């Protein structure tokens, strides 16, 4: 099986070329590359129904965090992650407001100290793929800890 509605044929064909495998130092004994592993996925045990406690621990250590969502995704929709962040009960330090990329509103964000919650307007699950410009701007702001 492959993820629904996603076409990964081109990258799969390229990665499975013998000359590409050789260039990437992949042993000949390994099986062909695939985007997802049924063997791994089928035997996987999920332990964390929520990572709330993990976030609280990290925030208490002063770690910077960004939770961003393309707002047309239904696999992990933005509203669920917004509620998750709100459930952490962190003090709001900046109001819900728009952010700009390439002179356009690229989404909305609010901040809770070291934690930023941000949407990417019109993007789906794979934000860097479907909103590459805004995604790079967001990435730069996050790394440099500068305003969005």
């Amino acid at each position, binding site marked *: 099986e492959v993820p629904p509605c996603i076409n990964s044929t081109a*990258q799969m064909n390229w990665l499975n070329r013998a000359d590409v495998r050789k260039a990437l130092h992949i042993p000949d004994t390994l099986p062909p590359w695939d985007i997802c592993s049924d063997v791994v996925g089928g035997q996987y045990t*999920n332990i*964390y129904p929520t990572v709330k406690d993990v976030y609280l621990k990290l925030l208490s250590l002063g770690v910077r965090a960004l*939770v*961003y969502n393309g707002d047309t*995704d239904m696999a992990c929709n933005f509203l669920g992650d917004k509620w998750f962040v709100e459930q952490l009960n962190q003090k709001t330090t900046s109001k819900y407001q728009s952010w700009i990329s390439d002179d356009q509103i690229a989404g909305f964000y609010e901040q809770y100290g070291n934690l930023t919650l941000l949407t990417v307007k019109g993007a789906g699950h794979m934000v860097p*793929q479907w909103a590459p410009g805004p995604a790079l701007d967001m*990435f730069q702001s996050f790394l440099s800890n500068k305003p969005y």
Partner: protein
Amino acid sequence: NYAPDEVTELPGMSFKPNYRQWSGYLKASPGKFLHYWFVTSQRDPLKDPVVLWLNGGPGCSSLDGFLSENGPFHVNDDGATLYENNFSWNRIANVLYLESPAGVGYSYSDDQKYKTDDDQVADDNYLALQSFFAKFPNFTQNEFFIIGESYGGIYAPTLSQRVATGTAKINFKGFAVGNGLSSYALNDQSLIYFGYYHGLFGEQLWTDLNTNCCDKGTCNFFNNSKEACKTLLSQAFSIVYDSGLNEYALYMDCEGGVGARAYKRSMSHLFRNYRKHWDTFQLLKVPSVTGQTPSVG
């Protein structure tokens, strides 16, 4: 830097990159070897941050992130040639793509046993990170960030906790999660509202959901035990996941078309594990939504 892993040329690459790249293996727990692909920053590799990128699944490859999302080049539809990505994240950072856990992509285990869990993945990723910085000691002083997408919502914070509290010398600054799974309950609970307010459910289904799944103004759309509610939730989730919509991008086409979708059951591949509890919803016994409505173009 680790010379044997350096990638000096790639088939299909007609342009000359202004960055360096390495591909090889990092050691995790004994017998497990995780494939990595590391690209340096196009700006100032020695000063720019190092960022670890993790795709989700569980069980899906981070090379999808490289070759389709934020990597410096992507693959053309011919599957043979490459083109540059002007919005690559390595324009401003050194980016490490890690195929994890063992069994995903080109990562492997000597014993070929691939049963694992969230904590084992985080432990192995932490070991792999230490293996990375042993191979690339020049980057140990750089600021370090972890970013996960989708099920990376579990991978990224659990690994971050190990990095932040562990003894390995890593200049860890922060983590990010993109469209991540953070809470099963909130993800399902919110999806019903998302679906209704994006016009996916009819007024009758919405009314029935509120009548059968809510009590005194509080609704449970996640693990409600009422049979009537479970049936209605099955209908709602079937509209989202099994009616032909692109669940990853509501307003985009579904590659392959409605009839050619690779999944025929109401579980998304990327989330089939966490949706194990959907068995109780008896999704497959519910008449399909597409069967109840006229065919549309």
